[in-house]
């Protein structure tokens, strides 16, 4: 099968915030080699750890983000390491790295210097704050970017602390933008021959995820705050909208007048399940109020009419008590599947177990089994984020063992066995 990036060679020297970019590019067919310091990438030791495996090969976060890549170790701070790295760069289309400008200069790899020596190289940088600006040299982490980008202020309960997004979303958003920038730069190089630098700031990569908070501040001079998930972008709590407790877990519903079958559809679902709560909700005062606000235009008009809102908010709250009582009686999967069949926007709150067993994901053969002989087992990995029909996703190798491809990569650029031995003895590889 063809692949979109089958001719592209990539060296990945990124910190953990950039690992997912190399993973995506490898899925598109690029040959991606993770270059680690001789002691290994720090995320190799992050919990959770694969059992019965040497610690350096056990970090599951590292495995997940680096599956499909080759791996070498190289101390690019050492003189001989630098020489070897330059030889590798001659064979490289894309360099992914996380150096600040100061670090790049100290290494002798600042962007001007690299551009001069490697005019065809796409030099792609991902850092916490980007390469210039007053904060460029500050320390960063996932949670710091979430905080400074305003997304954390929206997450959590009104009275509680701002809450981080799960599973390093700053890293993922930065990596996604890095991958997009690299593919755009490859397209440019294909057509005009111009190779260029790509720059991603994790902080900036998250800003779109403020939803409407930025525009609300800009247009209305109002800061959106955390609401405990009750209203979000709509701004008010509508009956049928939000998180509800089901018999065996939680469901999230958008069964209000925003889209799909709306509140009328929710009553239909109640009928279908033979639940008399529907009859109560068909009585006044609910019937006329819910009918009036059965479309998004009416809901948004209500937002601009605080007096009207005040008039009906008790009706909304009482109707919501009935809706809450209804959801509590039924299993989440039933509410989801039966509801969706009626075009109701209801979804279960799924954890890893439900996703792992998901009828939909498994029907689509989404998960991928990767044989990992170095770790003595088969591992079940998530599938690719997309299905490209003509250029299917590729996952051709397990996550690299520390220095697994040293010999292969270094001899390919002309190092001899005795060179390798010397580098190894000096702690360079």
């Amino acid at each position, binding site marked *: 099968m063809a692949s979109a990036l089958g001719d592209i060679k990539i060296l990945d020297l990124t910190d953990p915030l950039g690992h997912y970019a190399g993973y995506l590019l490898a899925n598109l067919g690029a040959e991606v080699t993770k270059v680690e310091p001789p002691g290994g990438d720090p995320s190799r030791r992050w919990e959770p750890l694969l059992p019965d495996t040497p610690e350096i090969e056990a970090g*599951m976060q590292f495995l997940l983000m680096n599956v499909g890549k080759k791996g070498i170790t190289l101390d690019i701070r050492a003189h001989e390491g630098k020489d070897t790295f330059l030889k590798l760069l001659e064979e490289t289309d894309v360099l992914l790295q996380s150096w600040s400008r100061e670090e790049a200069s100290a290494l002798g790899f600042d962007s001007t210097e690299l551009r001069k020596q490697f005019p065809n190289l796409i030099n792609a940088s991902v850092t916490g704050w980007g390469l210039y600006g007053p904060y460029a040299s500050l320390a960063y982490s996932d*949670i710091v970017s979430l905080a400074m980008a*305003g997304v954390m202020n929206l997450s959590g309960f009104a009275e509680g602390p701002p809450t981080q997004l*799960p*599973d390093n979303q700053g890293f993922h958003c930065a990596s996604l933008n890095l991958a997009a920038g690299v*593919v755009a730069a490859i397209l440019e190089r294909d057509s005009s021959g111009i190779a260029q630098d790509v*720059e991603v700031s994790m902080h900036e990569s998250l800003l779109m995820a403020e939803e409407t908070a930025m525009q609300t501040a800009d247009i209305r001079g109002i800061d959106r705050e955390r609401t405990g998930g009750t209203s979000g972008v709509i701004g008010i709590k509508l009956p049928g909208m939000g998180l509800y407790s089901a018999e065996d877990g939680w469901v*999230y519903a958008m069964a209000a007048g925003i889209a799909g079958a709306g509140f009328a559809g929710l009553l239909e679902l109640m009928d279908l399940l033979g639940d008399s709560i529907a009859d109560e909700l068909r009585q006044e005062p609910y019937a006329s109020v819910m009918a009036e606000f059965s479309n998004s235009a009416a809901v948004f008009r209500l937002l601009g009419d605080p007096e009207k809102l005040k008039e009906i908010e008790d009706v909304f709250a009482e109707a919501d008590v009935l809706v809450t009582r209804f959801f509590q009686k039924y299993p989440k999967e039933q509410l989801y599947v039966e509801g969706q069949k009626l075009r109701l926007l209801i979804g279960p709150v799924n954890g890893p177990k439900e996703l792992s067993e998901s009828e939909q994901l498994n029907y689509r053969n989404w998960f991928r089994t990767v044989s990992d002989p170095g770790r003595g087992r088969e591992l079940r990995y998530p599938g690719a984020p997309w299905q490209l029909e003509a250029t299917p996703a590729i996952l051709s190798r397990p996550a690299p063992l520390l220095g697994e491809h040293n010999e292969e990569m270094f001899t390919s650029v002309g190092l001899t066995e005795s060179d390798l031995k010397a580098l190894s003895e000096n702690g360079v590889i």
Partner: protein
Amino acid sequence: MSNVSTKPRPLDGLKVCDATWYGAGPIATRALANLGADVIRIETEKRPDGLRIAQPKPEGEESLNQSGYYNNFNAEKRSITIDLTTERGHELGIELVKWADVFATNMTARAIRQIGFTWENVQTANPGIIGLYEPMQGMTGPHSEFQGFGALLSAICGVNYLAGDDNEPPIGVGTNYTDYVINPIHAAVAVMAAVRHKRRTGEGQLIDMSQLESSVSGMAGALFAWDNGQTPYQRTGNRVPYAAPHGAFLANEVGDRADHWVALACMTDDHWVSLTEVMGSTELALDPRFRTLEDRKSNEDNLDNIVSGWIRDMNAPDAMNKLQSAGIPAGMVQKASEVLRDPHLAAREFYAYPDHSEAGKRAYDGAGFRLSETPHEIRGAAPLIGEHTWEICESVLGLQPEEIGSLMAEQILY
């Protein structure tokens, strides 16, 4: 946006027929537009993009052209209004498909059938086209017809389950999170990869992008651990396995600002030693409960109490400065208005302020990645609904003015 540059861009000449709406589709095609593609959004006034109706708009304003939510995601696109449910309207839509290199949609399968833009129809009309289809759960399978928004998908894909504290309900993260970066940028990467394949081989293709699969891919840590024999995931609020202390801590009240938090992360033992120095406590530095990451993780409640007590007496900006001066990752939990005024973003000219004929100069999020030579940047505002109907009919569809006039009179065009 003082001077709009005219440098070439990587996707100059790429033609995109854009039948997306809401967030996950339009943000993907916005990236293409800001990379130079000619993106034509097909819209209708009968059933406009919900974001054109949504807030924020200036107070009392109901115009479909004034929503900051819509405008931010549609910078630099053109808009044509066609009633695709009419026979002639559908024909004109198919003409745009024939014109395009890429067809993009994130509508549900049902809505796609209603407007006649199934992959079968699109590919028949234009065999070399790239078709991006982004329904919530993909184009096949028992849940392929199910519908939702980002907040709902967040529940299904694991955001709600994974975020927050174990003793609180799984409320999610307060937004339609998956709509804004994860899904649209995965989609943009996939489209550009397909463009490369098309340029090299002439072959188009279908991109079946399930937003569920894309989202799970972007937060798969707990799932991967579960699938390979690890203990069940525990929700841990603001904690992570790789750093301690790690979290958000309430700072001192300043003026009318009672709710000011500082986020920090001690990722290494050195960070911890530096923190004890900033706190001025040699005692803490020597405390065996906190010496290694493992120690600090085992005593994290005590650790967090100590750090909380220290930050509680400081102003948030001072705390950030002190921590950062010692090399510790730290930042303020900024509100949106503070992000808009953030001096770092200002120096980097992140926000764009393109001129919009109804909404004026409003802030748009800048590019999520930057290219040094052929820039990724916002060179224009979002379109008014149907703003380019006439010009697209003339220059793209090759219609005569009389015909355009009569189609408008019949409300096939608006």
